[in-house]
């Protein structure tokens, strides 16, 4: 069952991606991107990343995709830009992409999975291999509901919500806790990045005011 659902979501994701990358019509490309994003959200849920699945839908489908579609509409007559400089042909690009894929697959299958553990002297050590996990998908992981709650209890105390809902709060409790404890710095610093993009986007996309508009703005502000 797990596998069948996985393959369905995987097929939606990959199919959508193919249409996005190779459709002639830009509107089709934008809409098939929607399917890819949904498929990926499904895959996240299957990996127990429920909070991120919801975020994926909100940010990608609700935000980025809408922005892209606006971009398509606003610049419907925009020409093309050739960012390929030099004489590289499509075939070379295609072979490079396939080669990259082959190398990636080789690396995935050729690599024993690893997993760090603290040894007695306080240093960590990379142990275990994929072989054990391959037979029992996910079961070796600490990342399931009960284990999460158990793992968090000594660290942060069990939140009441977790108790009352019998562990149905998913990963959001832990992610939220991490944001305000271990990952406080990036959580604060990302606001600078968002400010930069906000400032930059308004600076660049702003319309150049005409003389009359400037005069009106002057009179209003006085």
């Amino acid at each position, binding site marked *: 069952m797990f596998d069948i659902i996985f393959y369905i979501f995987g097929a939606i994701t990959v199919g959508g991606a193919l249409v996005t990358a190779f459709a002639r019509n830009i509107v089709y490309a934008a809409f098939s991107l929607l399917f890819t994003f949904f498929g990926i959200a499904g895959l996240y849920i299957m990996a127990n990343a429920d909070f991120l699945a919801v975020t994926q839908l909100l940010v990608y489908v609700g935000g980025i995709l809408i*922005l892209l579609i606006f971009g398509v509409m606003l610049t419907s007559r925009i*020409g093309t830009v050739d960012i390929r400089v030099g004489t590289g042909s499509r075939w070379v690009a295609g072979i490079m992409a396939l080669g990259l894929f082959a190398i990636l697959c080789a690396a995935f299958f050729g690599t024993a999975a690893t997993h760090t553990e603290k040894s007695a002297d306080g240093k960590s050590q990379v142990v275990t291999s994929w072989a054990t996990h391959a037979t029992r998908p996910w079961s070796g992981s600490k990342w399931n509901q009960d284990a999460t709650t158990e793992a968090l209890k000594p660290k942060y105390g069990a939140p009441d919500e977790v108790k009352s809902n019998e562990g149905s709060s998913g990963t959001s409790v832990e992610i939220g806790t991490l944001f305000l404890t271990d990952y406080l710095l990036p959580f604060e610093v990302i606001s600078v990045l968002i400010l930069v993009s906000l400032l930059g986007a308004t600076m660049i996309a702003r319309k150049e005011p005409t003389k009359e508009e400037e005069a009106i703005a002057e009179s209003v502000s006085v």
Partner: protein
Amino acid sequence: MSSLSNYLIVSAILFMIGASGVMFRKNVIVIFMCVELMLNAVNLTLIAFSQFMGDQSGQILVFFVMTVAAAEAAVGLAIVISVYRNKETVEIDKLNLLKG
């Protein structure tokens, strides 16, 4: 069959499609969509590893990647619009001024 391998293969396929889209296509917005595909592929890899190893930092990174992708999308579209606006008024026939 290992679920981790499944996830990794799907994400490698997605990354490859995205990368070849960036190299093949000429429309700016489609290129940008392909970049989003690549970022999604990375997110999928991170989530798979994070789940597999029971380590949360992968999920945290995914969260930040999404934020960055959104910020990049905003700036990118602003740039596209400014190019478009000048192109309409200045009437250049090709976007390749900066050669030679």
